[in-house]
C-alpha cells in the first residue's frame, strides 16, 4: 500500500536498530586518526550531536586541534568545539579509552590498533577503518609489542566524510560474535546515520574495486579516443555524479595506478593494469586560475587543449539524454544510448556492461546479495546501483548488453524474468543518481 514488502521489512529493521542502539551507552566517543582525515572530521561532527565528550586524537596534537576546529566550521556549531577534546595519541590514549563506549580508529598501524583493542572498555564498540588493507592483515601484529585483539574489533571502511557519505563496508573477523555485530550495525545506523554493508575482507574492499575497474576501462579508452568523448560516455546521464575521467582526477592518478596494478597482480590479468600514460602524475582536466575555462588532456599531443578544439558532434546523443534526464525520463535516456548507432554509444554500452559484470559477479562470493550490492554502490560511490540499472533497461536488454560486449553471462541476470525487478531500496531513489547539469 504505502510501501513495498521489502521496504516494510527495512522499516521494521530501522525501528529495531534504533531500539537496540539505545541499549548501548553513548556519552563518550573516541576517534583515533594518526593524520587528519575526512573520516575523522565527519565522525566528530556526528558524535558531537549525542555524545557529551568527543575525543579526537592524532599523532600531532595540532592536527587534532585543527580537526576539531574544522569540524566546528563544517557543522556550523560551537557545540562541536565545546564537546571536542583534541589530543595527541600518545598522551591522550589512556584517558580517551577510559570513558569512550564507541571508538573509531582510522587507518592505524598494528601498534596503535593493538593498544586500542587492549585498553578500551570491555563494553566499547571498536571500529577500525583499515583503508586499503584487509582487517586480517592486522592479525600478525607486525611491528607491535602485542597483537591487535581482532575479536574486539569490527572493520568499517568509510568513503569520505560520514556526515556526507553514508555508505560503509563492514568487515568482521571469524571471532566476532553475531550479537556484537548486530549491536554495532544498530549503533552505526541509529547514531551515525550510516548504512554499513558486510563484504568479504580483501585489499581495497569491494566498492573501491568496482570503482577502480570501471575507471581503468575508461582510462584505457583515452588511448584510442578523445578524452572529452570518454568523459561524456559515462557521466550524469548514465547515473554517475560526474564523468568517469573527472572522477579519475578526483581519485588521483597515483592512487588509481596503485589500485589498478594491485588488482592486475592479484588476478594475473594484465588488462587490469593502469594504462602506460598514467605512469606519471597528471590530470585529465585542468583549469585556468579563475576556474572558468576547462582544458582537457589531448593524449596524442601530450598537452591540454580547450574543449572547443575537440570534435563534439558525436556527443549529440548525450545532449539528447541530458534533455530526457532533465525531465525525469531516466529509462528513456538509457534507452536512447542503448539504441544509438556509432562508436561512442557503443563505448557507453561496453562500459556499462563491464560495470554490471564486475559488480554482479561479486554477489555470492564477496557480498551476500544484490540488495547489499546496490546499497553499497549507491551510498558509498554515489553511482546508480546495478540493480536499478538493470530494472531501467530491462533484464533482457541487460543480458544483450553483456553479450554484445563479449563478457559472457551473469547468473543473477540469467535467472531474472522479464518484468521482474532487482532493485529494492526505497530509501535511495534511482532518479537521485542521474544528473543533467
Amino acid at each position, binding site marked *: 500500500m504505502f510501501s513495498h514488502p521489502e521496504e516494510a521489512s527495512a522499516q521494521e529493521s530501522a525501528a529495531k536498530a534504533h531500539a537496540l542502539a539505545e541499549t548501548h551507552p553513548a556519552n563518550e566517543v573516541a576517534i583515533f586518526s594518526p593524520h587528519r582525515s575526512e573520516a575523522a572530521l565527519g565522525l566528530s561532527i556526528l558524535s558531537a550531536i549525542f555524545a557529551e565528550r568527543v575525543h579526537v586524537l592524532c599523532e600531532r596534537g595540532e592536527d587534532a586541534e585543527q580537526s576539531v576546529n574544522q569540524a566546528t566550521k563544517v557543522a556550523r*556549531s560551537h557545540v562541536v568545539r565545546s564537546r571536542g577534546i583534541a589530543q595527541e595519541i600518545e598522551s591522550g590514549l589512556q584517558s580517551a579509552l577510559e570513558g569512550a563506549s564507541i571508538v573509531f580508529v582510522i587507518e592505524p598501524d598494528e601498534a596503535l590498533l593493538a593498544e586500542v583493542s587492549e585498553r578500551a572498555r570491555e563494553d566499547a564498540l571498536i571500529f577500525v577503518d583499515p583503508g586499503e588493507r584487509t582487517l586480517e592483515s592486522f592479525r600478525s601484529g607486525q611491528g607491535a609489542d602485542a597483537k591487535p585483539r581482532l575479536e574486539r574489533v569490527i572493520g568499517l571502511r568509510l568513503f569520505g566524510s560520514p556526515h556526507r557519505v553514508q555508505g560503509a563496508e563492514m568487515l568482521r573477523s571469524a571471532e566476532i560474535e553475531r550479537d556484537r555485530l548486530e549491536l554495532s550495525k544498530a549503533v552505526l545506523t541509529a547514531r551515525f546515520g550510516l548504512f554499513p554493508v558486510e563484504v568479504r575482507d580483501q585489499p581495497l574492499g569491494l566498492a573501491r574495486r568496482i570503482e577502480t575497474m570501471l575507471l581503468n576501462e575508461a582510462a584505457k579508452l583515452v588511448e584510442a579516443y578523445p578524452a572529452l568523448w570518454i568523459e561524456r560516455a559515462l557521466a550524469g546521464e548514465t547515473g554517475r555524479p560526474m564523468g568517469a575521467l573527472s572522477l579519475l582526477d578526483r581519485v588521483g592518478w597515483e592512487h588509481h595506478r596503485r589500485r589498478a596494478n594491485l588488482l592486475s597482480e592479484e588476478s594475473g590479468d594484465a588488462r587490469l593494469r593502469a594504462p602506460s600514460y598514467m605512469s606519471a602524475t597528471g590530470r585529465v582536466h585542468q583549469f585556468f586560475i579563475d576556474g572558468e575555462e576547462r582544458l582537457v588532456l589531448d593524449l596524442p599531443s601530450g598537452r591540454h587543449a580547450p574543449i572547443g578544439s575537440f570534435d563534439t558532434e558525436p556527443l549529440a546523443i548525450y545532449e539528447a539524454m541530458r534533455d530526457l534526464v532533465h525531465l525525469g525520463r531516466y529509462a528513456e535516456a538509457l534507452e536512447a544510448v542503448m539504441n544509438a548507432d556509432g562508436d561512442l554509444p557503443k563505448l557507453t554500452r561496453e562500459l556499462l556492461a563491464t560495470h554490471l559484470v564486475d559488480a554482479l559477479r561479486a554477489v555470492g562470493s564477496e557480498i551476500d546479495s544484490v540488495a547489499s550490492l546496490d546499497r553499497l554502490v549507491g551510498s558509498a560511490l554515489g553511482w546508480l546501483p546495478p540493480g536499478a540499472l538493470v530494472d531501467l533497461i530491462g533484464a533482457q536488454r541487460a543480458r544483450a548488453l553483456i553479450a554484445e560486449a563479449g563478457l559472457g553471462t551473469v547468473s543473477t541476470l540469467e535467472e531474472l524474468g522479464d518484468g521482474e525487478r532487482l532493485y529494492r531500496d526505497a530509501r535511495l531513489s534511482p532518479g*537521485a543518481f542521474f544528473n*543533467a547539469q
Partner: protein
Amino acid sequence: MRDKRNSTPVFLIGGEQTDFSRNFSREGKHFVAIMREVTLAALESADIEPKEIEAAHIGNFAGELYSKQGHYGGFFVEIDPAFRGIPTGRHEAACASGSIATLAATAEIEAGRYDLIAVLGVEQMRSVSAKEGGDFLGTAAWYEREAQGKAFPFPQLFGRLGDEYDKRYGLKDEYLAAISDINYSNAKRNPKAQTRSWFMNREHAERLDEFNFAVGGRVKISDCSQVTDGAAIILLASERYARAYADRRGIPFERIPRIKGFGHRTSPMLFEEKLRLSERSPYILPEVRQTIVDAQRRAGIADISEIDAIETHDCFTTSEYMAIDHFGLTAPGESWRAIEDGTIARGGRCPINPSGGLIGAGHPVGATGVRQLLDAAKQVIGAAGGYQVDGARNVQTLNIGGTGTTAVSFIVGV
C-alpha cells in the same frame, strides 16, 4: 453556516514522497522530474496502473516565481501517456496549498464524481538565491504591507507570534529550543527527512552565536524550517474503490486509512489584524483553533485525548508552540507544560511531528500538506518505520498558509 459531518469517507490507499534532502536544481532537473519520480514511485508501491487515476489535483505555491512556469495541472499529464485527458488543476493557498488540493479531491470523491484521485504537492525552491527566495516567500503574507523590502519577512512575522505569546502569557526561549531539538531528533529517524544528517541538539538550539543567529526577533536559525525541493503524493479513493483494492491486495479493508474529518478556515491577511481581533480570545489565532475543533467534530472525536499523534505546521518553532495549546494539549498560553512533561516528545502521550515536521523533515511549500497526510497514513497502519508512534490509530494534521491566514486540518485514522 451549514455544518455537515463527513458522510462519505475518503480513503488513502497509497502515497510517496521524494527525499527532501535532494537538491533537484543542482541535479539539473525540471520540476516535472520531481512530479514524475514521486508519482511513478507511488503507483508502483501501491500496485496501481496509471490508467486507473481518474483525476489529479496539484498543490503548488509559487511555481511562476521559482520556476517561471505555471499550469502545473498540465504538467501532471506529462508524467505518463495514460494521464492524457484526465481532469487536473492546481491549487494555491501559500503553505497550505497541498491541503487545499486535498480538500478539492475529497470533495470530488464525496460527490461521487471519481473513484481514484491523485493529490500531488510539489515545490522547487532551490532554483534561486536565499535572498530572492525570501522575497518570494513574502508573497504568502500581504506582500506590499508586510514583506516588501524586508530581508526575510516570515521569520520576523513568526518572531512576532512569539512576542505576542510572551506579552500575553510569558514565553521562555528554552521551550522553543526544545521544540527544535525534538523535531531535529525525530528527523534522524526519517529516511526522507531533509535534516537527517545535519548537526543539531538542544545545546546548539539554545545558543545565540555566529552560527545560530537571530533572523527575526527571537527567532534564530535553529527555530526555522529550511527551504528545499520536493514532492509528496497521496492516492485518494472512494469506498467502492477501496473495498475492491483491499480484496485485490489481500488487505483487510479496516486497515486502509481514511480521512475521518476536516477543518478549513481563512482569517484576515495582516498578522497585526489577526492579533487585534484575538485580543480578547484565549487563543492567539482563534480561527486556527476552530479549524482543529471542526476537524475533530466532523470526525466524531470528542477532543485531543482521542488523537495519538500530530503532524503540525512548524514553519517556525513559534508556530508549533502555538499549535500545542490550539490543539488543546494544554490550556491556552501553557504550551510549555506539554514540552516540559514530555507530552509532545517521542514516547509521550501525543507526540508532535514524529516525522520531524517542517523544521526536521523539510518544507517544500506546496508539498507539505500532502506530506503531512502521507505521514499520518503511515502512522495509523504501522508503516512509519523508525519514527513510528506505537499504537497510533488517529493522527491529526494542521497545515497553515501565510501567518495563519489559511488553516486546514485533517484527521486520518483506521
